[in-house]
């Protein structure tokens, strides 16, 4: 009842764990095969150590992070982490980061040779100094990036949008025009915090990415608006901590959802969300999740 086919891929339920917030370490708390999908950390061409200084800072209703795409690099991921991930009966989504179009292309060429069925292109990381973020702000630049990436990408491509885009509707439209197979909305919001004792910004990069329940109403609005103007599947992400949040995104127009910061509250939160959705669907006598995608818009 909760299974859904998007991008020609069968998801056993619409719940996916979001990039950078989840790893195989969670297998200790619940069977990862229960998940609809797992999105990997942002993969870059070479290993990245990430940012120095403070990396996380709590805010009311969420947290700011400035991890800086720490990851083992795509080759190490493919040889060391992927084989184990493939043991789980769930959809693996490779999140691709990078600071140049050339880097995106090189990473994707490597991923083309794996069994990973779906790629999520991160054009919106606020925590990497060069590039990356600019791609996610200006829709004309995003159009070019997605067009180039689509030329080499042999898997369905989901573009993860930044809420910091100058115009989220134009951004979504252009990515769609450039051939994106889907969109995930949204990445973290640019934010900051100041340490009043040191009288300095908390983060070395000054700006960090805000996530958590505090962003949910804005992210939900973006999903709602974007889903009105595009005809490709949307993955809703931003501050989901229970099944009700997840259903709101689905009713706003998302075909699936991602759980990010919520994983930090409780490692098995995604399982609670899956069970909650299943119960709701049963009680409401809904035959397929498809029936309620975007239902609030009609």
């Amino acid at each position, binding site marked *: 009842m909760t299974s859904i086919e998007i991008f020609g891929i069968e998801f056993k339920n619409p719940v996916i764990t979001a990039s950078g917030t989840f790893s195989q*370490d*969670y297998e200790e708390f619940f069977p990862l095969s229960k998940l609809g999908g797992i999105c990997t*950390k942002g993969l870059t061409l070479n290993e990245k*150590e*990430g940012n120095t200084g403070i990396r*996380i800072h*709590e805010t009311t209703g969420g947290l700011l992070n400035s991890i800086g795409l720490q990851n083992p690099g795509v080759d190490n991921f493919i040889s060391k982490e992927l084989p184990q991930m493939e043991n789980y009966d769930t959809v693996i989504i490779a999140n691709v980061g990078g600071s140049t179009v050339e880097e995106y292309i090189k990473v994707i060429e490597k991923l083309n040779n794996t069994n990973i069925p779906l790629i999520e292109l991160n054009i919106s990381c606020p925590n990497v100094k060069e590039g990356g973020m600019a791609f996610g702000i200006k829709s004309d630049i995003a159009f070019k990036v997605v067009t180039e990436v689509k030329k080499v990408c042999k898997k369905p491509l989901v573009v993860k949008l930044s809420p910091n885009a100058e115009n989220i509707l134009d951004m979504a439209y252009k990515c769609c025009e450039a051939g994106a197979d889907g969109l995930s909305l949204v990445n973290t919001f640019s934010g900051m915090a100041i340490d009043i004792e040191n009288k300095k910004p908390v983060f070395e990069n000054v700006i960090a990415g805000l996530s958590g329940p505090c962003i949910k109403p804005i992210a939900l609005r973006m999903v709602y608006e974007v889903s009105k103007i595009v005809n490709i599947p949307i993955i809703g992400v931003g501050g989901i901590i229970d099944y009700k949040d997840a259903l709101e995104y689905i009713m706003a127009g998302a075909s699936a959802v991602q759980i990010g910061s919520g994983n*930090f*509250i409780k490692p098995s939160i995604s399982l609670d969300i899956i069970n909650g959705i299943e119960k709701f669907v049963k009680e409401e006598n809904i035959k397929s999740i498809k029936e309620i995608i975007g239902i609030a818009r009609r």
Partner: protein
Amino acid sequence: MKPKQYKGIVLSNINIVDNIYELKIIGKFKGNPGQFYMLRSWDLEPFLSRPLSICNIEEDALTFLYEVRGKGTNILSNLRNGDSIYLLGPLGRGFPLDNRRKVGIVAGGIGIAPMIYLCKSLNGNIDFYGGFKEKPFYMDKIEKYIDKLYISTDSGKEGYKGFITDIFNLEKYSTVYTCGPIPMMEKIKYICEKRDISLYISMEKHMACGVGACFGCSIKTTSGIKKVCKDGPVFKGEEIIFRD
């Protein structure tokens, strides 16, 4: 030892001294000295759980010793007998137990928290060095497990007046364990390195997930970037870089 999620019940939560509290949770728990649990006794504020190292594990209770520093620990300090609390653990890598010869333990302030369980597990042959600001605490709990106790206070009210590192005499130790303020641990590392003594340092860092997924607590070490929650919190002395 596989970590688990638990719903625990508070046995007691006592204000030991100043802003130091002892929290006991009812039940049979597992864990090694130096490992920690993530705790939360609130819904969404603060957003993250709080990592606290295991202070002691007894037949029927798990003990934490913590200092009230912010929102989370302040909420913890209001817990009463019978209240429920969410726990996740045991997490991380603890202290390797090595007491073939004499062991020195150097702890500062709330850094004594993981050392009680370490002393208990080491089975004797321990000298304990405890550094405090004003008033030593919990030393009565530690005395029965150790040979010799050295105390220092900043004020000189009890024990030596000054830093514990001033009176740390490493002549006799094959292994040293330390936890506490960075300057103290840095000094201990410096002393141990000169003498080629095995040193284990327990690091503290703000954490989000606590299980190794988010890279929020990463630190640069001599063996690359490490996660305090998963690769630590206990590291070999030579791995820790206190300043670049």
